[in-house]
């Protein structure tokens, strides 16, 4: 394990990340509503810290990055970026405590979208943009971006890429990892620009359109409005945002295939079919359940049900309606959506449709083997056999995910919140969704959670974004043994 080299790479990441703090500055200067000083100060601190790390370990060299180092770089890099990203919030006013600032920042990077702010609109425009921008960076991944931009990461890039990309078996779209990273970011940026344009056609202001596009594509869910998307009360905006949420929850290699002229790419992919079918079925069930009970017309029921189901299953977390007013059946469906999440290789969180599908197939295979004890069976996906080690890693993931979910909910309850809030808040953070149930429902926020609870949820958000293994490995003693 090359610790020095790892810190050297993290130094470069922090330094490059410091530069991105220039992005929200134009908004600060244009609106002149404060935050400029906080941003510039944070920029200075981050760059100095990055440079110090860089210089301190400049002599460290490693021939290649092993899987172990790749995981360490990603885990430490994400933690560092989460903390430095909190500086603009912390330095912008006295009302921010350290835990609140870090919570807001990590919630941004991990594309969770949970906020501790009761009055979002009071925040200076520059910081609002910063909030959305860090979600955008975190969505496709800061490491993937670094691989695309920093040439020296090319050699060990695959190890870093595997540690960050949310998928049990990451696709390599091009022979070289750097080209793959560039393509992913291009597709991502293209969708974002398209959404900005479509929102602006509907008369949304450029600032709001930009902020919402930058939080839709990463399935983040930070809004510039206190009441989230409900504030606009516009069917057109809801449809545009729904469309891009659905796209963001699909594996980005399918988008690439589609753009390369394979129109049936979505249909041919079994995971994508599963994902779209889940959206359709859940929407139908919730609409049916809410029609009459909550909404007077079927159209209304469909409008709110579809937006909320898509927003939760893609783990975005925008709200157009307080779903805690819905019947229990609909709320349980939303809880299921939180756990399922988007597709592998998308920007969505949760457990991912692919893993859920394969778990079902695995269970069926076990049952089949009981009926035919001598049968030789393999688990197939789209006509291809899933290797045993992939299956094993998925089952391990399932066990860890559920185990950590349970432990975190118990620990959160220990800080003094009620059962519904404990389960809802952990589901909302470990799945990177945002709004949960109880005290942290769609019309409330996370401010009321005790400080210890917030640290716990920060940990959950990172666990969810880095898909458990990359982060939890740091707690395994064998990881540090030579």
């Amino acid at each position, binding site marked *: 394990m090359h610790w020095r080299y790892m810190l050297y790479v993290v130094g470069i990441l922090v330094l490059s990340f410091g530069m991105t703090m220039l992005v929200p500055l134009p908004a600060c200067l244009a609106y002149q509503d404060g935050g400029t000083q906080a941003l510039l100060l944070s920029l200075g601190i981050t760059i100095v810290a990055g440079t110090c790390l860089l210089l301190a370990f400049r002599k460290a060299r490693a021939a290649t990055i092993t899987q172990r180092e790749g995981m360490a770089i990603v885990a430490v890099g994400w933690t560092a970026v989460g903390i430095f990203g909190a500086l603009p919030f912390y330095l912008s006013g006295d009302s921010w405590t350290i835990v609140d600032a870090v919570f807001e920042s990590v919630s941004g990077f991990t594309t969770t979208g949970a906020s501790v702010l009761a009055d979002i609109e009071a925040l200076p425009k520059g910081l609002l943009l910063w909030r959305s921008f860090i979600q955008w960076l975190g969505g496709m991944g800061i490491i993937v971006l670094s691989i695309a931009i920093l040439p020296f990461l*090319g*050699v060990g890039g*695959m*190890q870093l890429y595997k540690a960050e990309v949310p998928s049990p078996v990451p696709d*390599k779209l*091009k*022979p*070289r990892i750097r080209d793959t990273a560039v393509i992913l970011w291009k597709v991502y940026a293209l969708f974002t620009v398209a959404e900005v344009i479509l929102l602006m056609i509907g008369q949304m202001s450029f600032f709001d359109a930009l902020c919402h596009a930058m939080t839709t594509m990463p399935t983040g869910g930070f809004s510039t409005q206190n009441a989230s998307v409900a504030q606009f009360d516009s069917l057109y905006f809801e449809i545009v945002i729904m469309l891009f949420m659905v796209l963001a929850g699909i594996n980005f290699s399918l988008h690439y295939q589609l753009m390369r002229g394979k129109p049936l790419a979505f249909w041919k992919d079994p995971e994508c079919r599963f994902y779209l079918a889940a959206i359709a079925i859940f929407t139908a069930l919730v609409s049916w359940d809410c029609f009459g009970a909550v909404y007077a017309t079927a159209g209304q029921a469909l409008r709110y049900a579809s937006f909320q189901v898509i927003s939760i299953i893609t783990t975005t977390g925008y709200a157009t309606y307080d779903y805690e007013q819905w019947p229990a059946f609909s709320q349980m469906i939303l809880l299921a959506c939180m756990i399922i999440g988007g597709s592998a290789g998308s920007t969505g969180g949760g457990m991912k449709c692919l893993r859920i599908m394969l778990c079902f197939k695995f269970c069926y295979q076990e049952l089949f083997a009981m009926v035919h004890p001598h049968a030789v069976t393999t688990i197939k996906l789209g006509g291809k056999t899933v290797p045993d080690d992939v299956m094993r890693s998925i089952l391990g993931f399932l066990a860890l995910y559920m185990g950590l979910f349970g432990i975190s909910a118990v620990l959160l309850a220990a800080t003094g919140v009620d059962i519904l809030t404990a389960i809802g808040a952990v589901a909302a953070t470990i799945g990177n969704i945002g709004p949960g149930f109880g005290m942290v429902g769609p019309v409330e926020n996370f401010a009321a959670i005790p400080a210890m609870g917030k640290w716990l949820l920060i940990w959950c958000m990172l666990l969810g974004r880095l898909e458990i293994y990359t982060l939890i490995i740091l707690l395994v003693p064998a990881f540090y043994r030579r």
Partner: protein
Amino acid sequence: MRIVIIGAGEVGYHIASRLALEKKDVLVVDKDPEAIRRVAESIDVQTIVGTGSSPEILLEAGIREAEIVLAVTDSDEANLVACLVVDILSPSTKKLARIRSADFDAYYSSFRENSPHIETVINPEIEVVKTIERLMRVPGAVDMGEFADGRIKFVGVYLTEKDRLAGARLSDLPGMLEDKRLLIAAVVRDEEVIIPKGNDQLLAGDLVYFISEEEQLLATLSLFDKHAQPIKRVLIVGGGRIGYRLATKLESQSIYCKVIEKDARRCTFLADKLNKAVVLHGDGSDQGLLSEENVADIDVVVTLTNDEETNILASLLATRLGAGKAITKISKFSYFPLVTAIGIEQVVSTRLSAINTILQHIRRGKVLSAISLKGEQAEALEVVALESSRIVSKPLAQVAFPKGAMVAGIIREEKIIIPTGESVIEPGDRVIIFAKRAAIDGIEKLLAVKLEYF
């Protein structure tokens, strides 16, 4: 440039890692998921698990956009079939195949002219036999290559403490050597390739690479106090395909030759095919057998069994018993630095030969030949300087060469010129360039983009 490599064995793996470092788009296909995983985890290339001769897999690998396909699986037949399928799917793709069986020796040109239109058949065994012959003839050489159709040799020798050049600075050389010329191109010290400049010193223990015309070679080697001795007796340990090929060659040159082979049936075969050579049944690392056969009188021992440990031991034993020198076949690249440390200097490898031949063809077009230095950290390229190139018609000092690369020689008509900063390359010259691995991409750009207006 997209290159598809079929077969992720030792050769496929090393070619892939070389090309990936040079920023080429490489796809590796192999049917063994384990082999593919080894490639995917350590090299920045795309990988596909599947049979390399399957049209479906080849299309998935984007064969139609590929410039070159390399078929280097362990099976000759699989390589041939893969090339045949590629020929049907994408006739414009250049096909290189490794074929080892001697049965096909006479048919290489047929494979080129008829389907599957294999541009070059790589038979590393033929290459290895050539290398062994060269190493035998050149005293003290541990590595050797050829440029300009063999008129120019490129030789690596170890400097020992007794040599008069040990400790000399490059700038002192002209004074020390009077009228003789010595063109030192590269020095390997502690496994690092150094491209030496005027002030650098040559130290005992260095592996020194120099360039020399064919006629001057023996005179140049005498500068290193290596003197040619005629070769009369050769002992070959291991009568496999390479051993058999070498023995036939030596027989035709009337060199007395003994072959030791462990397998009795193979011995019968060899005795049947070879006329003058003495075939011995036994173990090459058996001290009794070696002294019985008077190994002290043997000029060169060549160890060629399939077991590298046996080769290493037999070579050590033979030199200890008094043999003139030993040439050892080793396949595992990781052994190279080790064997030098225990005193085995002359090493040949089928895999390294295959890689050299393949590289030469990948670089072809602008490049006439390409030779990897020992340990493959650097390459020597022979290129033709075209008129439109950025390297011609101005003093070398003004050409923007990438770091770690230098012009080692200029061949104009029949002369070799040792370049200085003021030398000017003229269009049509052949230029020998030494480049470290990291500089190769830059060199290719310097030569390619401007040369042929891509």
